[in-house]
């Protein structure tokens, strides 16, 4: 059973982790050269104007004051304004987060479905099917997601010309166009995790198939598919749940690159643009929101693991 103390401890860890990350990012960003205000202003703008903007944004105050200001505002749910566009960071995030979440979710679904071939690998342990599946999974782990994306673009976008090579359409508004835009980015993003999950499913299935209750199931005369599906797969998928949770969180990071390849207006593209223009409030906002999502997912999958596998004790 999950103890309340464990849950509280884990919950308390989340803000601590966030605090460490935010301090690191904030101080390092502000301690290094490269003035965002100069980058935002047109060349030849007067020094007074630059100073005025700095004052407005509070960039002329000492670092620790800037940090505590930012932290208190962030706690109140206000992440400040973009230095580049003056837009509210909150609004920018709300605009782009659903796009990234849609992409990561689709990629997760794809990776989970593909990973079920791991079951075949386990059943055919150390035979041809197993080796072929494992070889493909090793290749899947070795292909960087942006190269996978480019290969897909070359094949389906340039040669066959059946899929659009860039952009994003909300699948809730236009399901067909939305899916057509989503399928290549989602496959590129999901490829690595499909390969990793396949390995997990295989080894987890192998563990289960070696256990006594499987032998009992066979001994009592169940059909092989019943043994595999009802007794084997059901138990083998338990540990996969945590891995899927973790990989979902990692995909939020991976989508940064995929969004760049397919020109998808998600949170990753926002971050890249912010980084190149040293737009601090936006960088901090993106990191904070992704950090929170990441830590929450980790927390939830840990809890979920405890619930579905009663043998785990915290």
């Amino acid at each position: 059973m999950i103890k309340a103390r464990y849950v509280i401890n884990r919950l308390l860890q989340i803000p601590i982790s966030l605090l460490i990350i935010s301090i690191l990012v904030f101080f390092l960003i502000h301690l290094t050269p490269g003035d965002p205000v100069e980058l935002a202003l047109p060349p030849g703008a007067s020094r007074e104007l630059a100073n005025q903007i700095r004052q407005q944004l509070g960039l002329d105050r000492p670092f620790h004051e800037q940090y505590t200001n930012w932290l208190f505002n962030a706690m109140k749910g206000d992440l400040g304004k973009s230095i580049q566009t003056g837009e509210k960071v909150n609004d920018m995030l709300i605009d782009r987060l659903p796009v990234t979440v849609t992409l990561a979710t689709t990629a997760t679904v794809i990776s989970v479905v593909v990973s079920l071939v791991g079951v075949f690998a386990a059943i055919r342990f150390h035979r041809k099917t197993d080796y072929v599946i494992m070889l493909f999974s090793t290749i899947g782990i070795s292909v960087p997601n942006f190269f996978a994306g480019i290969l897909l673009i070359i094949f389906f976008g340039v040669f066959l010309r059946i899929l659009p090579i860039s952009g994003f359409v909300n699948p809730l508004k236009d399901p067909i166009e939305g899916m057509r835009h989503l399928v290549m980015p989602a496959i590129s993003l999901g490829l690595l995790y499909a390969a990793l999950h396949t390995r997990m499913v295989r080894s987890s299935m192998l563990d289960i198939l070696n256990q006594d209750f499987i032998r009992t199931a066979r001994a009592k005369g169940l059909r092989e598919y019943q043994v595999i599906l009802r007794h084997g797969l059901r138990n083998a998928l338990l540990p996969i749940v945590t891995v899927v949770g973790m990989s979902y969180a990692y995909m939020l990071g991976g989508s940064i690159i995929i969004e760049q390849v397919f020109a998808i207006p998600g949170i990753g593209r926002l971050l890249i643009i912010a980084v190149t223009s040293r737009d601090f409030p936006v960088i901090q906002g993106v990191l904070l929101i992704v950090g929170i999502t990441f830590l929450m997912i980790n927390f939830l999958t840990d809890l979920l693991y405890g619930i579905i596998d009663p043998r785990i004790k915290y």
Partner: protein
Amino acid sequence: MGRVKLLMPGPKEFSGEKRAIPHTQWALFWRKFRKIALAKVGAITLLMLGLCAVLAPYLGLPSITEMDLSQSATPPTWLHPLGTDSYGRDLLARLIYGARVSLSVGLSSVGLSMLAGIPLGLLAGYFRGKLDSILMRLMDAIFSFPPILLAIALVAILGPSAGTVVIALSVVYTPRFARVVRSSTLAESELEYVLSARAIGASHWRIMFIQVLPNVVGPITVQATVTFAYAIITEASLSFLGLGVQPPSPSWGLMLNEARMYIEDAPYYPIFPGLAIVIAVLAINLFGDGLRDALDPRQQRGE
């Protein structure tokens, strides 16, 4: 058939007194490792890439910096076996030099993160208690963040360059080594040899680095190969995004990004730098899988 042999020692194994049975750790490892065909393929490929990287300046390759815009992105010819890049430079030569960038960035970031992570893990696992929780909370904080994101944040701070990539990757990967070493050290510290070392008055420092460290080399090696592969992919990703190695340095990720513009007119062009990354990473992964199988007694093949 091979499996039967393994289960039932053949006559050779029985009359093994004449045949030298390897009993050093290295010999035991080698005996298992050399049986794994794919691991050997990986090792040889890796070796060849390493040779390319080291010998690149002596191979008589065409210049990798001289531009000739009239020869931009030409298809493969005898003169340029893989064609030219967007600035008319020989692509093959740039890819070979790219191995230098990828391997050196990968190796140095793995090296640096080992340098930081191993002592941290030893300290945490050996002394336990408060020091352990503080160190591991810190590692968890770093670990609990998507690596590419943290790397981008660090690049944002330090400005894009090969050096920044190395620093960023080292920070990102340090917790991996700290964690692996800590958990192995926890287990090792329970063993009698540590107790007896303490009994004869060995210093903590001596026990950690001279006694315990050699016994946790296995997991560290496996972690190092996995991390090496990740480091190469992440370096390529960062360079691809324009946040890593800067032109005119020949980084595979950077070349892939330049090649992207030619997807319509010269679709073969982006494939070459991409393949270079895949080959390097695949070789490391195959090699690493073999290492893991040969070093980890629980994951033996066919037994």
